[in-house]
């Protein structure tokens, strides 16, 4: 608990620090204000930008819905990176695993015509399995041949995106009458229910039950790490694989297991995007989520609660950023800068410490994973 508060404090300070730097960026890119030397105007630009950033992420049901919708895939794919970190692996392949899971859940979603209570869980499970198999490949390659997971997962990302492109042009997946790679829509019963469906007619409330899936997955991740024998083995291997070997753990199998779970989480992220957000699949299904997931996991130090909090933060920034762009002259790209700054400040706790003169001897430990020698 103490550790949690400590890491939350650093995250919060990092957020404040990056908002400060972001403000400077807003001011120096506001050419008109600089020319006229009107700093009152510059100040009000910053104020309005941050105001609509905040309003767009938390103010009102629509903003909250947007935040939740943005958080869902980030959280699931963040877990995919986190669990790999815990097992001592650097999973850059959340994108590929998301695509794989998205496609398997898509197939269940349109190929079967069951009732919703069966279709939805089945399609989500299919996504988890599809992603797990795809993630497992990288684990198996590492365990069998020692091929570094950073390389293999990056390569598998490319394989996945071209595979999806090809699949979407096959008659099995491609929507009839469409020349471009767009899939058939999933059946209405397979759609993840809207979270705010009870508010009639509000089509703009896009948050869906995928968020609940993600929360359950986070809970599962916590349970797996802290309560199970496999979780104990994973953590031991991730922290010190020599000690794990000495203790009789099968570190190679554990690599595969870590990547199976990682792929499973990412696969569910793909599934919830297909089943909740889009209702079909396209090549842009995974977007940048798989890479943002790395930042989410790093920021959350791979802990269940940390990953949840940082996914929420990134989801909120994403939702707020869009509203900021719509309401002010500040472009949504600032969000990318802010996110990068947050990660940088978290990665450099000493810098934040110095900036805010935090009187604490213990600097948060940061993320550990094995380097190229591993």
């Amino acid at each position, binding site marked *: 608990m103490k550790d949690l508060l400590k890491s939350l404090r650093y995250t919060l300070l990092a957020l404040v620090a990056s908002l400060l730097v972001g403000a400077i960026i807003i001011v120096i890119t506001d050419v008109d204000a600089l020319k006229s030397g009107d700093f009152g105007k510059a100040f009000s630009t910053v104020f309005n930008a941050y105001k609509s950033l905040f309003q767009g992420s938390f103010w009102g049901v629509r903003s909250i819905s947007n935040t939740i919708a943005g958080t869902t895939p980030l959280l699931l794919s963040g877990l995919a990176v986190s669990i790999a970190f815990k097992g001592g692996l650097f999973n850059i392949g959340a994108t590929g695993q998301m695509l794989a899971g998205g496609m398997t859940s898509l197939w269940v979603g349109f190929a079967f015509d069951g009732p919703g209570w069966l279709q939805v869980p089945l399609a989500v499970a299919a996504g988890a399995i599809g992603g797990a198999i795809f993630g497992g490949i990288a684990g198996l390659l590492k365990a069998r041949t020692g091929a570094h997971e950073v390389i293999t997962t990056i390569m598998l990302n490319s394989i996945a995106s071209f595979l999806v492109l090809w699949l979407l042009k096959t008659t099995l997946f491609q929507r009839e009458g469409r020349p471009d790679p767009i899939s058939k829509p999933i059946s209405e019963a397979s759609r993840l229910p809207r979270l705010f469906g009870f508010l009639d007619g509000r089509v703009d409330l896009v948050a869906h039950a995928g968020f609940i899936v993600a929360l359950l997955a986070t809970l599962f991740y916590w349970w797996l790490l802290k*309560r*199970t*024998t*496999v*979780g*104990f083995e994973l*953590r*031991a291997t991730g*922290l*010190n694989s*020599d*000690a*794990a*070997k*000495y*203790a*009789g*753990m099968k570190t190679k199998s554990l690599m595969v297991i870590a990547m199976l779970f990682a792929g499973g989480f990412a696969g569910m992220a793909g599934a919830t995007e297909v089943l909740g957000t889009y209702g079909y699949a396209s090549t842009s299904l995974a977007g940048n989520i798989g890479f943002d997931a790395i930042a989410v996991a790093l920021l959350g130090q791979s802990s269940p609660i940390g990953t949840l909090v940082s996914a929420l933060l990134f989801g909120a920034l994403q939702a707020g950023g869009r509203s900021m762009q719509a309401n002010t002259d500040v472009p949504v790209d600032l969000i990318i800068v802010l996110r990068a700054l947050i990660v940088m400040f978290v990665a450099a706790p000493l810098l934040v410490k110095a900036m805010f003169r935090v009187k604490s*001897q*213990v600097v948060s*430990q940061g993320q*550990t994973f094995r380097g190229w020698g591993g």
Partner: protein
Amino acid sequence: MKLELRGITKRFPGVVANDDVNLSISTGEVLALVGENGAGKSTLMNVLYGLYKADEGEILIDDSVVRFTSPADAISAGIGMVHQHFMLVPVFTVAENVVLGIEPTKRFGALDIDKARQLVREVSDRYNLDLDPDAIVEDLPVGVRQRVEIVKVLMRDAKIVVFDEPTAVLTPSEIIEFFSIVRTLIASGKGVVFITHKLKEALTIADRINVLRRGKVAGAADPKTATEAQIAEMMVGRAVQLTVNKKPATPGDAVLNVQNLSVVDPDGRKVVDDISFVVHAGEIVGVAGVQGNGQTELVETLSGLRRLNSGQITLDGKDVTHSSPRDLHTSGMGHIPEDRQLQGLVTGMSITENLVLTRYHDGMFSDGVKMKWPKAKEIAKELVANYDIRTSDPEQLASTLSGGNQQKVIVARELSRDIRLVLAAQPTRGIDVGSIEYIHEQIVKERDSGTAVLIVSTELDEVMALSDRVLVMYRGKIVAELDPKKVSHMDVGLYMAGSRPTESAGAKS
């Protein structure tokens, strides 16, 4: 030249590494700085060498204050340091290594290797170091590499030379050679600071002994009159048992039986060469040897972490030649590994988690899927109490413990299991005297309860004190089997160096 440290205080987050330390050393004398690991010896020397800045206090040379902000300042003031871990480029020649950083050059900046050679020869001759400037460093034995380091320091005109644990890596005969080098240095007007935790050596070579304890100067001793026990008491702060109290062994049946074991490392070198031995229930067999003579590989093979090339191993009559570490654990082997940070512990996990690291899969702690943490915590509490592990809370990370207490965690975990054999590699390396005493007691207690014990240690004193039988390993072979009560340290030292005492007293083979 006279060097003086006055009131040096150096604080690190949470600890005061040096607390108002006063020290002086003049050319022409050997000062031994003794203290346990963590007493602040290295910190003090790093302050002196300009690597750390002291929070308080000053450094004086010939009674005037100097300030060192980097090792370069210290070197130009005439201070040289020979580190415990040598700073040499293995693929370079001696001459190349020695001039690294102060290369003599010809025109256009080309390295003048002839000049370098000549310099090495000069220094080497003047101090009787017997170095070949053209030898490649990686081909040289450790003792010779140390002399390369010494030449490096001397060529930079050091007047005071600091040796940090210089004998840790040397064979007994190399230590004697090292001492004669130190005497030559003194005779030619240098001053030597000798950092060590080996009291016998401090008494042999030093003119004065200063003892550090918990960052403070605990006292000074005169090597002519002081005894080991007195200095040890100063180091620890209480009277310590330097010898191990044990009854004669009553060996029972063979527990570990190793026949014709050979291990080849990935480079194709035969690191363990046709070894056979037996360890019986109720006896302690010690394996002595200088580091790097195959002991590490032997232990790894016996514990299932390394594949053997030929031979057979049986544990309690059961063939375990190709068993996994897990199988060996369940067949009754307790293993205290050589490196506690690297293998023995997951320091990023709690003490409780570390206490179940080798038996978490046991029905007592796991139902196959879920861990039974309440049970593990209960057992951890017991072990912490029974094995004197000093911590306020077993849920703290293992990294918060001192080295001695970390080692006790491993000892507690391994000895508290139901075991027939203990495999202990360097069981007391780098830990405080109090913990050494305690761990030795536990190992003897385990022997007395009928467990077979195999100790592998490069500390000859430890092997001699604990073992009922001593095997000496040299270049992968067992070259002698000795009775520690009948053989002198010196003779064992000769076996360790690959030679044979003229009169093989007490040797059975």
